[in-house]
């Protein structure tokens, strides 16, 4: 696992402002040896205290996850016991084999994966193309257009979900994946995120490529895209996770069971069998595992994406 401290130090995050850790400063070297040794001893004690505090804190904050995993390995009547059983008396692994037949979990996972992959690909492709147009090509009306993009980011999605729904109804696209793909694949946020990154790539690079005879499309494909891998990864991961976790979109548009995503399937399972505590937790664990996997693979890009879009917004 890479250290998030290093990720926050990526130069593109702060626009060149040098970053420092708060606690230990390199300036300490200037102090006398005597002061350093007392200071260092003090620091070591503080560190031990801080470690202890952090461990307690993180365990407390992770309690819901610990409880979720532990409950998923129990019988239903063992989940809500007094006192709490943190470690199941008997591990009921069969929950993890039974769930596939209790609900069409595989189908739900496939639907979620299908939507997330298609929407992510479209978003990254169209977003990075548009971002190139907005940052590296100058033409009249460009900045007004970009303001429109920014403006809609500020409008809550809930404020226009009804007109979107009417439109999809008229197009006959409700109860289909296409509605969700069309609604989510062309988001303004992706364009914004990519443009923020492209603005940090010097124009001289494009200029040099132009002199070498590359077309604008060639510059995008061969100069800009390879340079913007971190931003592409950020956008792809954020979009994938958002789509995977999305509840309201599928809730509004997908009515038939065979189209349901993991989130909808899990929610409906909870609604139907609200006493099947253990199996509900098993389903929750399964719905979280892909996200955990993706997060651990690309956590630095998540953090960078958030810091980029956040701090420069």
């Amino acid at each position: 696992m890479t250290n998030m401290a290093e990720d926050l130090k990526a130069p593109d995050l702060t626009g060149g402002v040098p970053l420092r850790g708060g606690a230990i400063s390199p300036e300490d070297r200037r102090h006398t040896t005597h002061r350093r040794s007392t200071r260092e001893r003090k620091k070591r004690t503080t560190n031990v205290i801080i470690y202890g505090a952090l461990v307690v804190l993180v365990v407390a904050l992770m309690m819901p996850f610990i409880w979720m995993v532990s409950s998923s390995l129990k019988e239903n009547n063992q989940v809500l016991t007094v006192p709490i059983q943190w470690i199941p008396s008997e591990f009921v692994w069969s929950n993890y084999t039974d769930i596939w037949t209790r609900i069409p979990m595989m189908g739900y996972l496939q639907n979620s994966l299908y939507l997330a992959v298609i929407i992510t690909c479209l978003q990254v492709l169209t977003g990075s193309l548009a971002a190139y147009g907005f940052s590296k090509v100058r033409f009249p009306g460009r900045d007004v257009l970009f303001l429109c993009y920014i403006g809609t980011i500020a409008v809550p999605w809930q404020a226009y979900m009804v007109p979107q729904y009417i439109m999809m109804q008229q197009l006959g696209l409700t109860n289909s994946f296409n509605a969700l793909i069309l609604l989510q694949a062309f988001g303004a946020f992706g364009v914004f995120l990519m443009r923020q990154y492209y603005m940090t790539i010097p124009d001289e690079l494009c200029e040099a490529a132009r002199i070498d005879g590359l077309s604008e499309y060639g510059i995008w494909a061969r100069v800009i895209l390879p340079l913007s891998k971190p931003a592409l990864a950020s956008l792809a991961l954020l979009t994938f996770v958002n789509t995977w976790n999305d509840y309201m979109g599928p809730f509004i548009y997908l009515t038939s069971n065979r189209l349901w995503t993991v989130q909808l399937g899990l929610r409906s399972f909870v609604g139907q069998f609200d006493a099947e505590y253990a199996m509900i937790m098993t389903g929750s664990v399964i719905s979280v595992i892909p996200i955990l996997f993706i997060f651990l693979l690309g956590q630095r890009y998540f953090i960078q994406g958030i810091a980029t879009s956040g701090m420069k917004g």
Partner: protein
Amino acid sequence: MTTETITQAPGPARTTPHSRGNRKQARRNTLIGWTFILPNFLGFLAFTLIPVLAAFALSFMEWTSFAAPKWVGLANFQRMFASDSFWVALRNTVVYALGHVPLTMALALVLAMLLNRKLKGIGFFRVAIFFPYITSLVAVAVVWNMLFSPDSGPINQFLHAVGIAEAPGWTSSSDWALPAVIITSVWRDMGYYMVLYLAGLQAIPAELYEAAEVDGASAWQRFWNVTIPSLRPTTFFVVVMLTVSSFKVFDLIVVMTNGGPGRSTTVLSQLIYQEGIGEGKFGYSSAISLVLFLIVLTVTVLQFKIQQRRER
């Protein structure tokens, strides 16, 4: 942001001395620019921009799934202000925001200060605290609903253990359902804002702290006189983001309580959904949307003004 774009990005070979060449170049640039933007713009125009504009227009029309749209002026708004369910939803949304914004902000800052140090394995702690933010909402809601079970849920067992005899009914009580939702959302969101605060903390020059220390400032004084003022831009951003997201709260409520018990956790977004998509009252629901948008806009502009005054 826009001034930045204007000064940047000269088009290809703009040094051509002849104006005809310039014009040709400009036309070529427009064409090239649009081909890049078009694939995204078509989708954006059709499924974001037009619906946004339509939402404004619709709020002044009466349009149900059974009848053709007709212009009714402010009738939707009159009906809305006379409706009890609107005020209940507005109240719940405001209460949610008043709980969610300060709590998340305070905890995010505390966590960021705790985790802003160079220790072995600090990355693990950061990742762990950030993880709830990207966990699926349904799983989060389902787990917390069970943690909140009134009789034998872990939270009430804990409260009993520390001596609280009458633990709250949480999601089954109309008084405690909203606090339960707030606690869940604070837990889920604080990792995200912690990351923003961490970036803010790391941008504070260490010299400031050293100078304060030389002047004999205590840790507490350094916090109030160095950290807090230096973090002001971050705090501004965090407050705006948190407030906006609080007023938009929707899916967590739908999954956790679905507005209940009774109407005790119904929020504005949910009302828009019920009236617009549930009952097909397109015009009326758009009027509520407009109010939601205006609230979000006012809060943002207000905070922007406050921030500007402080900077002066």
